[in-house]
């Protein structure tokens, strides 16, 4: 009897043995180094780095590709070497010479089971591809750029007019067109194959993709910074925030894209084994006044609108731990050349938090009883709808009645605002530098519908008399002047001057910048501090990222 009891006990223990968690490793690492990260996305759109635009796609390609230089992970201010170990610029500023690292290997792919070593030929091919609008969404960034291979590890990039390092290196960093793709993979397998089987030099290589479910990346053993600690990275497409939250709680997910809402973050932070780190600054949120539409053609009305707004209240509404008021006309500090609050105040271009002044200006403009207006706004809550609701409530106190917020899906929103259909455009975005921001939003050529290259100049700045003095107001020359200025300080000053002019003419109202939240299991170590992550909007997964024993 006693023997049978012992045997039964042993059997039960044996059956239970696999259920006892066994994550520990002697070195403090979990036995299974598989990281699952879930994004707020229904599916992947593309794995082509020269086309990736959404948060999830940018994050995925970021782990598979490199640039010549890169933004330091987690603190993306300035540049550091990536595929290029050094570079120099000629005296005339028109020729940049890059020296590539040796021993950088592409991921294996059919025909090249061991991958192959990166040479300048790949970089030349890749940058030419980035400049081709047939294959790249960012072709406009590479106009007039000539690239040639000098030897297998040296290449030269020539530009027609010298530009500052800030602007130049941004084109060749690990963002958008700057990612280096495999020439041999594209030449032997073709563009269509590459779109679904990306081949880069990054710490992780593409393994497989299941539509609407996941993409699996596997460790690139020959990664030039060393063999990554993680064996696999699983990128999950989960558009429902509750599901992501539940997945994090059960441990099926280790990192999730969160809601940028303070209350939600406070709740998730109470979950066991979960840490919530917010990072930024990411996108800036601004309200653009369409100066061709009444009553916003009158600067007094635009100023009244600004005076009716309290940025601090909007930030509080969004959650003080996440949102912060901004006063810059383009991007936000620490981006070089972005105007600080102090600089804006000194220039006298801060109009806010004064309802009485708003009413007075409206009366002067012929609207003593205020006016009504309609606004088209995107369905996206934190970047568009929610801050717009806060503005709607604030300006109503001054008599401005945004009686109807016409909420449309995000694609419709982008279509309608580019058709000049809304008198006010609330827009949230990030751009790699102030030059791009000013060009795309305020250069006369970028004016929606009527510009030479219609883009996102929703205010029509540069084509209208903004301040009512009888002349067209423009910053086109300032943008051009700053672009070709080589001295970083002078360039930043010119950008500030342009912003002061815009804010003085009240073409738009900078409102807030929003941090992002990606809750993660406490045993996930990213391998780098997470302060800024603006080119991916998400924590970067690098060769140093690891899962600790838990």
């Amino acid at each position, binding site marked *: 009897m006693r023997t049978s009891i012992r045997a039964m006990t042993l059997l039960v223990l044996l059956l239970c043995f696999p259920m006892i968690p066994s994550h520990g490793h002697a070195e403090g690492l979990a036995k299974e180094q598989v990281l699952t990260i879930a994004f707020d996305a*229904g599916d992947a759109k593309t794995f082509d780095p020269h086309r990736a635009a959404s948060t999830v796609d940018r994050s995925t390609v970021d782990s598979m590709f490199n640039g010549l230089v890169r933004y330091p992970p987690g603190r993306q201010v300035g540049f550091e070497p990536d595929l290029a170990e050094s570079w120099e610029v000629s005296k005339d500023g028109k020729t940049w010479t890059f020296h590539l690292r040796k021993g950088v290997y592409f991921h294996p792919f059919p025909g090249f089971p061991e991958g192959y070593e990166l040479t300048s030929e790949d970089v030349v091919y890749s940058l030419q591809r980035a400049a081709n*609008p047939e294959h790249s*969404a960012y*072709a*406009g960034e590479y106009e007039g750029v000539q690239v040639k291979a000098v030897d297998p590890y040296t290449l030269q990039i020539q530009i027609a007019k010298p530009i500052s390092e800030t602007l130049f290196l941004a084109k060749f960093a690990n963002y958008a067109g700057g990612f280096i793709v495999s020439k041999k993979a594209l030449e032997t397998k073709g563009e269509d194959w590459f779109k679904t089987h990306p081949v880069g030099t990054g710490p992780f290589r593409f393994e497989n993709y299941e539509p609407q479910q996941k993409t699996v990346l596997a460790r690139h053993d020959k990664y030039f910074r060393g063999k990554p600690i993680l064996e696999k990275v699983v990128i999950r497409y989960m558009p429902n925030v509750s599901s992501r939250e539940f997945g994090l709680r059960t441990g099926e997910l280790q990192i999730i894209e969160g809601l940028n809402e303070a209350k939600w973050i406070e709740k998730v932070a109470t979950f066991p084994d979960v840490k919530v780190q917010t990072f930024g600054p990411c996108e800036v949120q601004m309200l653009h006044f369409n100066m061709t539409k009444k009553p916003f053609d009158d600067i007094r009305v635009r100023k009244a609108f600004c005076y009716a707004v309290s940025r601090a209240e909007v930030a509080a509404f969004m959650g003080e731990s996440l949102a912060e008021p901004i006063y810059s006309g383009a991007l936000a500090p620490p981006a070089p050349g972005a105007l600080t609050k102090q600089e804006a105040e000194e220039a006298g271009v801060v109009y806010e938090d004064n309802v009485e002044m708003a009413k007075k200006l409206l009366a002067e403009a012929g609207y003593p009883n205020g006016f009504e207006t309609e606004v088209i706004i995107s369905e996206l809550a934190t970047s568009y709808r929610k801050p717009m609701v806060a503005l709607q409530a604030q300006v109503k106190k001054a008599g401005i009645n945004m009686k109807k917020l016409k909420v449309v*899906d995000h*694609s419709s929103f982008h279509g309608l605002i580019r058709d000049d259909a809304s008198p006010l455009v609330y827009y949230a975005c990030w751009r790699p530098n102030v030059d791009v921001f000013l060009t795309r939003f305020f250069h006369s050529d970028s004016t929606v519908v009527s510009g030479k290259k219609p883009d996102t100049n929703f205010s029509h700045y540069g084509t209208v008399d903004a301040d009512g003095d009888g002349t067209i107001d423009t910053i086109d020359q300032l943008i051009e002047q700053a672009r070709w200025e080589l001295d970083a300080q002078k360039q930043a000053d010119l950008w500030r001057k342009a912003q002061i002019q815009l804010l003085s003419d009240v073409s738009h109202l900078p409102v807030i910048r929003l941090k992002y939240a990606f809750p993660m299991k406490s045993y996930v170590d990213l391998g780098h501090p997470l302060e800024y992550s603006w080119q991916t909007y998400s924590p970067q997964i690098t060769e140093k990222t690891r899962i600790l024993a838990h």
Partner: protein
Amino acid sequence: MFTYVVRRILQSIPILFVVLTLVFVVVRVLPGDPAVAALGDYASKEAVEALREKMGLNAPLWLQYIRFLGSLARGDLGISAITGYPVAQQVVKVLPHTLELTFCAIVFGYLLGIPLGISSAVKRNTFVDYFNRVFSLLGLSVPAFYLGILLILLFCIQFPLFPVVGAGDFSRPVENLRHLFLPGLTLGLLMTAYVTRMTRSSILDTIREDFVRTAYAKGVAERVVLYKHVLRNAMIPIVTLGGLYAVVLIGSSVMVEIVFSRPGLGKLMVGAIKQRDYTTLQSVMVIYAVIVVMINLAIDLIYGLIDPRIKYD
């Protein structure tokens, strides 16, 4: 029978044609540029134009329509301009998940709904009947996304019996079933509500028929009367309901797919609408239309198996 099937299939062609034309027109009336949706708002104007050209969006509408019909006639569902994947390949990967979810929901619906409906009918106007009717009303009233979240909280968080994330792998049936159970139950409770109500009313109608009274008069046991005579005759509307609601379930599955992070045809369609992925959207709608036609045809054919009086000319 064969002639009947061929005739029904031929009759469905105009229906498909109308659906295709409507979808083609409606997606193009919506504001938003597929090229901008694909490349993002930071894309250069040249790149957006190049993609529009590649997608054939710069061609006149009538030409785009003819190209679309031509591709379909060749059996080509096209290539998604957003992902670069052939639409047929995407559909083949996600359709089995939608079908297994729908099938599972129907199974749950009948397994739970028929006994509840029978007990309601037999014990009409008693506590059991009231309880079943309230239960079925709840199934109809509670949105699938809410019910799904409640089930996750209960069976994944409080009692961690099932996984939350993903749809599992078809090559691992046990894992697949574990992933399927809760989504199937969520959608199945909707189906249960319909089946319960229909079973109850159908049995109440049948139970008053002369042949039932005759069976009782002959001294046939109640259980035999109920299951052999009443239920078989009451099944016709219940089977019809299954067919009709299979179509509804496929349509309703999108919320369940989103809550349980499962792939599926509904999710593919919603994504295509959001991205203005005309090619995928048009193709998915075609597949939906074909599924509806085929299910209706299948139901008509099943009638003959249940009711020998029905003949196909």
